[in-house]
């Protein structure tokens, strides 16, 4: 698929997700299956923001990683305010779909966005019995 076709696919994906955005999300993720050395495709994930007054998590977006383990359109620039966020990865369901068990029923990565004008990348490197994450760009 050439780059133009790739971008068109993303635009159609945005439309289908009812996200009226033409700009890339300032927050991105990438799931890698380190056990098999492949992207973590078709994993359900969700993005939440913490309400500092009520201490409750507010669901912003749900999505499913694509064949490349990515999930474009997580959040718009306008919605991306400073605060505490979490991405929840449905790791148990992911491995279950591959016919295997996983030590982690789900993984939640909670992080602080202090400067929403920057881009943030929160990947997940995952196997059945380990995972890691880092602040990328």
């Amino acid at each position: 698929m050439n780059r133009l076709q790739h971008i068109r696919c993303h635009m159609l994906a945005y439309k289908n997700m009812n996200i009226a955005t033409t700009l890339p999300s300032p927050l991105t993720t990438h799931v890698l299956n380190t056990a098999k050395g492949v992207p973590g495709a078709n994993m359900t994930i969700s993005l939440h923001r913490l309400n500092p007054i009520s201490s409750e998590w507010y669901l912003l977006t749900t999505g499913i990683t694509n064949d490349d383990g990515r999930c474009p359109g997580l959040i718009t620039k306008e919605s991306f305010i400073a605060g505490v966020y979490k991405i929840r990865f449905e790791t148990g369901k992911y491995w279950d779909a591959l016919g295997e068990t996983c030590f982690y029923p789900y993984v939640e990565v909670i992080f602080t966005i202090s400067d929403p004008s920057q881009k943030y990348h929160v990947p997940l490197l995952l196997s059945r019995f380990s995972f890691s994450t880092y602040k990328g760009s």
Partner: protein
Amino acid sequence: MGSSVKSSSPFTTHVLNTGDGVPAVRMALSLHRLDPRTAIWNLITIGNTDEDGRCPGLITSDAFTPGMYKVRFETAQYWESLGLSSFYPYVEIVFSVSDADQSCHVPLLVSRYSFSTYRGS
């Protein structure tokens, strides 16, 4: 609450500060079990890591039944005590124990901008 058990806990952890290449000393942590009927997390133990980044006596063999557990590490508090900021306010690792006869080791390798964990022995 589980800080002076004679036989070793079937569940152990070990926190390493990978930024400085040292054990993470005096990091607060807590172990919780999910009650499947109410979907509420019940606190089992709270503790602090020792000079070696470990926290002995987290749970007794009797209390360590199959189920879903989580260990919460107060990582931001730890980095703040060193005068540093970090990306993660805290780290929670949720895991399933199916065979409670086996010992279960859940270490945390942490820096200001990354962390990793694995199921050890």
